[in-house]
């Protein structure tokens, strides 16, 4: 690890001042950041430790929702009684990721900011436009099994690797962000960016901004499913994942909130997919139509071509499970 200065941020204001500097990164759980620092993918001159700033609680909100502190751990969130009862898709998504040791340390804010696991990004001997702008993308025409099929650019085909944010996207959660210009709320669906010509920009956080919490809306009920397809049954990143909140009224879809992991540089939420289901009775033909819409612009890069039919089948399977007995 390269030498760095370690500073414990005494306040949120000071954390903003510190991280506004180009050479300073905030550290919370650190499970992803310290890994990348050991690989010298990240070489900050200073770490600002935000762990003791207090926003670690999980609290009811006035509108019946739940506010997850950014410094609450993934485990504290997944096992919270209200998350288990009212937002099971979120518990399931978190529990499907990483290991217990990592979830015990990783925070909700840090989870949103985690970096891609693209092999070219994490290996400093390889070209990567995300890590070293202009150096090229090794994954295009390279080892691309984990890579994106939607929203790619000719600069980058990396995926956002997390599970939690996929469930948060389906749930319509919002990130609470604090900076020197004040506070703002950003829907998790809009928090991450597509690579475009600036693959090094992965989310909308400005210098000096810190995530302080995640607001979940009032519970919506429905059948909630997080289906993660991976190469081994534990401790592996998603090839494809689907977060689904489904409700039928009089045998027809009255709610279909869907988000997808493993497909893109961000948790993928295409409102057209859920919308095509609404008002319709479940059927194989309808599920195929939803998959057609989802995958209309999908493009494989050789090794990950399989993700296109896998995403189709996973969506189909999740919708069939959610509507079992109604079709």
């Amino acid at each position, binding site marked *: 690890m390269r030498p760095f200065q370690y500073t414990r941020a005494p306040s949120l204001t000071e954390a903003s001042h510190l991280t506004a500097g180009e050479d300073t990164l905030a550290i919370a759980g650190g499970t992803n950041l310290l890994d990348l620092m050991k690989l010298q993918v990240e070489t900050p001159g200073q770490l600002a430790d935000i762990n003791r700033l207090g926003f670690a609680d999980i609290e009811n909100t006035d509108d019946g929702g739940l506010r997850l502190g950014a410094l609450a751990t993934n485990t504290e969130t997944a*096992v919270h009684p209200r998350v288990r009862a009212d937002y099971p898709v979120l518990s399931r998504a978190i529990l499907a990721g990483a290991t217990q040791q990592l979830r015990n340390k990783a925070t909700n804010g840090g989870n949103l900011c985690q970096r891609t696991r693209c092999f070219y990004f994490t290996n400093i001997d390889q070209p990567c436009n995300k890590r070293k702008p202009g150096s090229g993308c090794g994954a295009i025409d390279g080892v691309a099994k984990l890579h994106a099929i939607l929203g790619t650019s000719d600069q980058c085909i990396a995926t956002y690797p997390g599970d939690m944010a996929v469930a948060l996207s389906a749930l319509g959660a919002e990130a609470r962000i604090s900076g020197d210009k004040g506070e703002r709320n950003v829907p998790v669906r809009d928090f991450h960016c597509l690579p475009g010509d600036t693959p090094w920009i992965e989310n909308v956080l400005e210098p000096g901004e810190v995530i302080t919490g995640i607001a979940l809306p009032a519970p919506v009920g429905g059948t909630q499913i997080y289906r993660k397809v991976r190469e081994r049954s534990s401790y592996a990143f998603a090839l494809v994942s689907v977060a689904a909140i489904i409700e039928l009224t009089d045998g027809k879809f009255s709610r279909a909130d869907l988000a997808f992991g493993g497909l893109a540089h961000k948790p993928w939420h295409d409102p057209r997919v859920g919308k095509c289901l609404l008002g319709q009775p479940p059927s194989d033909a309808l599920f195929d139509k939803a998959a057609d819409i989802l995958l209309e612009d999908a493009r494989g890069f050789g090794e990950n071509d399989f993700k296109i039919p896998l995403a189709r089948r996973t969506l189909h399977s999740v919708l069939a499970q959610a509507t079992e007995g109604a079709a």
Partner: protein
Amino acid sequence: MADTITVNGTAHPVPDDPRVSLLDFLRQHIGLTGTKKGCDHGQCGACTVIVNGIRINSCLTLAAMHDGDSVTTIEGLGTPDEPSALQRAFLEHDGFQCGYCTPGQICSATAMLEELAANWPSDASESLEESIAISGEEIRERMSGNLCRCGAYANIVAAIEEVAAGGRS
């Protein structure tokens, strides 16, 4: 007063160099070499220790982040004369071959039994809300952060199952 980390009941000053991981602090600064360095990237679990009652990978956290915390390592769980219930069960079930992953396995399993007692669900749990039945499948999922390259998994699961069924150490 200098910042300290309490390890197995004894307070130690936090190291000056912020790069020191909690793992390197335990092994190189205070000489507790029971905790093992495997991958040093949070993938193998050999470095698992218990911090304030919670199991974590000591390789992926800085010692400087832990002043005031209480750490339990394998040396704090039992002794050769008085092993913990899990340590005894690992011996009885031959839950290792080379033994390198064993301190991490036992620290991990020790905290895992507390998680089960608190009814924390896992990816293998049928229900998020009902009482969790201890099973081989639950143990395997909950221990997936601890690799054993000798492949002693069957015996590791048997050792943990026995202690889980027989109450706490």
